[in-house]
């Protein structure tokens, strides 16, 4: 790149855009250009029909070279639209791309004001502001950082597994961290998947095994991420491995300890959603990966009371059980991170009227899945808690979704999920089946067809949200207003299945804090752009996969996970990333080490040099918000491209240099 003429006197070119008639209809573009020509340092002005078009850009390019322009002002549409385009244009001519200022005279002027005089005057002022500001612009150089060829994936559900396999198969290393003793997540709990009715475990288990055995995947099950430092390309991650009290490298997964455990079948199983039981020594489910036993420290008699006959130790042939195990901390460095922390079901404590947790036969969708599943607690028989085959089952849609008092959003997949459960119930029982719905949403490949199919299976659809469940003898009465009939109905059933909304996991706030990720209003992680960057976050190098970004069904989750993997891969295959140079810098001589900037920084990007007694910015972590610059009492922080001088010049350009107010 040829050097810019920063030391020279500013030679500003002002280009005013007609944008067809978009600007010209309300702003007298020629007048604005004429006015601009009278402003200091402006050596060239031009109007263009379309400044963003190829011919428009060519005009600017020619003018920059011919008139030796060293600063450019473009009065056109919003800088959010084409600033990047024009920066590239400047770069092409050898001018530093940041020596540009865009005056927004379309979105902020011509499209919102009708009076031609007023609009033209405002356009002039905005151009004047840009002309005042642009001489103070400094050339900025994008920075390069190296990307380590490895990825941390947090969460071992289908999203994490898919992303891990995509990346590992491409030849990059993956550290897969799962907080449960086994990967598999919520999908592993499902019986069948809609709309094709594939057996969930049959399609998931091979992937789990692949992930567990892959030479490029290091699996940390029963582990959590403690902290993350660093930035894109070089994240330093500290992982906490919880003690299993079973040596993973020795355990063969034979299960003899689980049989021997004194507490066998006495503890509610998490995997069975509380519908089945396990011991204190247990293997979460037969297809678990890693297939290793784990001892639950909250229940194990030895660990809680210090006294037990320790039959597990005697039962274990290879001697894998080790009650001396401690928490372990492992540090790794990775180039990219994918969060795949999934979802939880809506916490029903706020909706006691449905009797969930109070009545035995009010269950959620996942619990019902376990009842349907052949390896579940009832071996696939759908029965009530006391073992009766239900005569009637009610499915209640939208519990904890689409409700201003709980979650305003639609959890998207519960309609289909519930239809599938109704279908399974129809297959397995002679029960009358009711679906209480607000409206049914079946958008997706093959979904509407599946809905049609279920409609023809003799299921009663009642258009009305179930409002209450009460017990009456051994029946449960579901109350709802049938909005098609316009009257309240009370339907006695033996079992109620609640389609609970999907919500972010309880610890999502903590995860968000560890990774410095935003959350959207629904509480899920926020993507960088809702349409165009759905798998990226605002932290460079950190990506999102699956339901941690918002409710998703399996196909959407897998697609999202692969998208996240592709993003991470493209970054790693490039080997380096460019970081926006709009960042803060501490002017050490002015800094008095008060640390106001450090507490102000949302990204922990400012540190204190205790020796030299001044703060400094870790530039690769700085996102350029400028909060530190506002916080600094000495104004010892220079926020590149948004310096105090530049902003003041802009303000002065707008307001003109009015005389200072003298005190009366």
């Amino acid at each position: 790149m040829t050097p810019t003429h920063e030391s020279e006197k500013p030679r500003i070119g002002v280009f005013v855009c007609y944008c067809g008639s978009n600007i010209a209809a309300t702003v007298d573009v020629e007048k604005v250009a004429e006015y601009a020509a009278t402003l200091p340092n402006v050596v060239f002005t031009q109007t263009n029909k379309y400044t963003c078009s190829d011919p428009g850009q060519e005009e600017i390019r020619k003018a920059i070279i011919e008139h030796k322009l060293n600063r450019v002002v473009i009065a056109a549409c919003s800088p959010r639209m084409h600033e990047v385009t024009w920066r590239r244009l400047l770069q092409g001519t050898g001018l530093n791309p940041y020596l540009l200022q865009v005056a927004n005279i379309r979105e902020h002027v011509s499209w919102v004001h009708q009076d031609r005089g007023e609009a033209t005057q405002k356009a002039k002022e905005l151009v004047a502001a840009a002309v005042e500001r642009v001489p103070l612009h400094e050339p900025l150089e994008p920075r390069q950082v190296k990307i380590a060829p490895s990825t941390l994936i947090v969460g071992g559900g289908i999203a994490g597994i898919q992303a891990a396999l995509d990346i590992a198969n491409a030849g990059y290393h993956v550290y897969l961290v799962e907080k449960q003793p086994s990967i598999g997540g919520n999908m592993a709990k499902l019986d069948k998947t809609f709309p094709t009715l594939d057996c969930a475990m049959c399609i998931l288990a091979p992937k789990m095994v692949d992930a567990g055995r892959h030479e490029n995947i290091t699996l940390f099950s029963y582990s959590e991420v403690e902290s993350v430092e660093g930035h894109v390309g070089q994240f330093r991650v500290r992982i906490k491995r919880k003690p299993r009290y079973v040596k993973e490298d020795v355990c063969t997964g034979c299960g003899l300890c689980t049989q021997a455990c004194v507490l066998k079948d006495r503890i509610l199983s998490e995997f069975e959603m509380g519908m089945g039981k396990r011991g204190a020594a247990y293997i979460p489910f037969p297809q678990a990966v890693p297939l290793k036993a784990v001892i639950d420290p909250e229940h194990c008699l030895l660990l809680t009371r210090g006294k037990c006959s320790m039959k597990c130790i005697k039962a274990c042939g290879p001697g894998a059980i080790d009650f001396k195990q401690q928490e372990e901390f492992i540090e790794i460095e990775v180039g990219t991170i994918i969060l795949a922390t999934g979802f939880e079901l809506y916490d029903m404590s706020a909706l006691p009227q449905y009797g969930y947790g109070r009545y035995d036969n009010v269950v959620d969708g996942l619990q019902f899945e376990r009842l349907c599943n052949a390896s579940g607690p009832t071996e696939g028989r759908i029965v009530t808690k006391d073992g009766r085959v239900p005569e009637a089952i009610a499915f209640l849609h939208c519990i904890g979704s689409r409700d201003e008092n709980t979650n305003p959003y639609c959890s998207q997949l519960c309609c289909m999920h519930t239809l599938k459960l109704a279908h399974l119930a129809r297959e397995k029982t002679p029960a009358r089946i009711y679906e209480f719905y607000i409206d049914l949403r079946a958008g997706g490949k093959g979904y509407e067809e599946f809905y049609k199919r279920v409609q023809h299976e003799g299921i009663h659809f009642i258009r009305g949200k179930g409002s209450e469940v009460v017990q009456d003898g051994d029946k449960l009465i579901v109350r709802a207003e049938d909005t098609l009939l316009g009257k309240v109905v009370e339907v006695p059933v033996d079992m109620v299945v609640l389609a609970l909304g999907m919500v972010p996991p309880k610890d999502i706030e903590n995860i968000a804090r560890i990774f410095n990720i935003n959350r959207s209003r629904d509480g899920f992680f926020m993507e960088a752009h809702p349409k165009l960057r759905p798998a990226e976050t605002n932290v460079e190098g950190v990506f999102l996969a699956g339901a941690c970004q918002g409710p998703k069904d399996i196909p959407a989750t897998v697609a999202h996970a692969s998208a996240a993997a592709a993003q991470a891969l493209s970054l790693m295959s490039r080997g380096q990333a460019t970081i926006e140079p709009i960042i803060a810098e501490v002017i050490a001589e002015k800094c008095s080490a008060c640390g106001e900037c450090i507490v102000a920084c949302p990204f922990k990007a400012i540190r204190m040099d205790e020796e030299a007694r001044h703060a400094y910015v870790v530039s690769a972590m700085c996102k350029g918000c400028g909060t530190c610059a506002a916080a600094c009492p000495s104004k010892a922080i220079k926020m590149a491209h948004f310096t105090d001088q530049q902003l003041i010049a802009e303000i002065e350009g707008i307001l003109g240099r009015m005389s200072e107010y003298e005190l009366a």
Partner: protein
Amino acid sequence: MSLPESNVQQPPYEPKIIGFLCNWCSYAGADLAGTSRLSYPPNIRIVRVQCSGRVSPELVLKAFHEGADGVIVLGCHIGDCHYIDGNHRTSKRIPMLRQLLAYAGIEPDRLRLEWVSAAEGERFATIVKEFTETVRALGPIKQVMVTG
């Protein structure tokens, strides 16, 4: 430089308003007002900042000092900040500055803080309309400075 302002004949008072808008939410919201062709008074001049957290009290005071009759700071809603919680600082600084203005005898309503998301073009236009009328009713800042 100076703008063509007549010293001979005082034009009727038109409030000059500086708007500090964060790039990610509020500036985009203002753009959306444009795209949606929502009309609002032309008095506001928008200065783009990356985050509302960039707006120091000094900058706001400087804008008043340079002759702004009103200053409005717009940022992302709490929780939606592109910079996680940059706007939390704004939510402390600007209200405190409003208090200070009041104590110093300057109408605090010349300074306003609101949250406008990228999807709230209409809200942006409404706020600007309201604020322009508020500042119009308060009169020129110069008048505040020279009376008394």
